[in-house]
């Protein structure tokens, strides 16, 4: 640094106002920047998929397939078919499609006016 540079550098500089400090520091967000704490997208997706798979497997294991011998299993669906009914009707409607019936054990009971068979 030569003589002129030293003389120029020795001159007192105009200073910014005190209000500038308040203006700048007031801009600082309270919470930490997301740039530092952000979780990578691939990690978030991987954890979400793993948790979803675990939850699905646990749900399958817990549901199981119930039977009449298993405590707490649901009872079979009973259908009563009345032959020679005086009114000509049955409690179960055979005229409609039954595609939406639940997949459970079924029990058919045929009731006749004269005799009963199970």
């Amino acid at each position, binding site marked *: 640094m030569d003589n002129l540079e030293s003389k120029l550098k020795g001159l007192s500089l105009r200073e*910014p106002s005190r*209000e500038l400090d308040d203006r700048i520091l007031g801009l600082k967000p309270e919470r930490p*920047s997301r740039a530092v704490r952000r979780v990578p997208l691939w990690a978030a997706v991987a954890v979400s998929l793993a948790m979803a798979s675990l939850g699905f497997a646990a749900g399958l294991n817990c549901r199981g397939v119930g039977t009449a011998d298993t405590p707490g299993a649901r009872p079979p669906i009973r259908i009563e078919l009345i032959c020679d009914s005086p009114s000509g009707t049955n409690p179960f409607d055979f005229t409609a499609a039954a595609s939406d019936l639940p997949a459970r054990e079924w029990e058919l009971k045929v009731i006749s006016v004269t005799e009963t068979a199970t």
Partner: protein
Amino acid sequence: MKTLSDALERIYREYRQQLFSCALAVTRHPERAEDAIHDAFYRLFRLKARPRNLKVYVFRAVRNAAIDQIRRNPLPPDDKGEFIFEPEDGPREMAAKNEFKRRAAEALLTVSDDERETTVQHLYADLTFREIARLRGTPPGTVAAWYYRGLKKLRARLED
């Protein structure tokens, strides 16, 4: 672990005088220089990723904001504006020093924009030629040429 906001606050506290001088070298008005620093930090505090060289990035952001200030409100042709030095030193200061300061301010306003800005960045903001080159997007050799050419013109005006 330091957050980006903490790092920006540290840079502001450490370089507030230098940032102000650099902005003032572009805007030539203290209020506009402060507005430029404010605009720059408004954007800086919203950065989503940390730049590689944060100090140079901050100086570049302030310079760009100062240029935006001038583009939005150009200086009147006859307005030379104010410059980076304190207008008046205390009574204990020698009159000769005040006279030299006045002449230096006038001389700095006569050199080209690149020469003046580079002189302030190197001499008063203590930025190296390499740092100035990075923030201006020019080769270091060009920055050095601006500086020494400006210094030569200042010498011719101040040492005659």
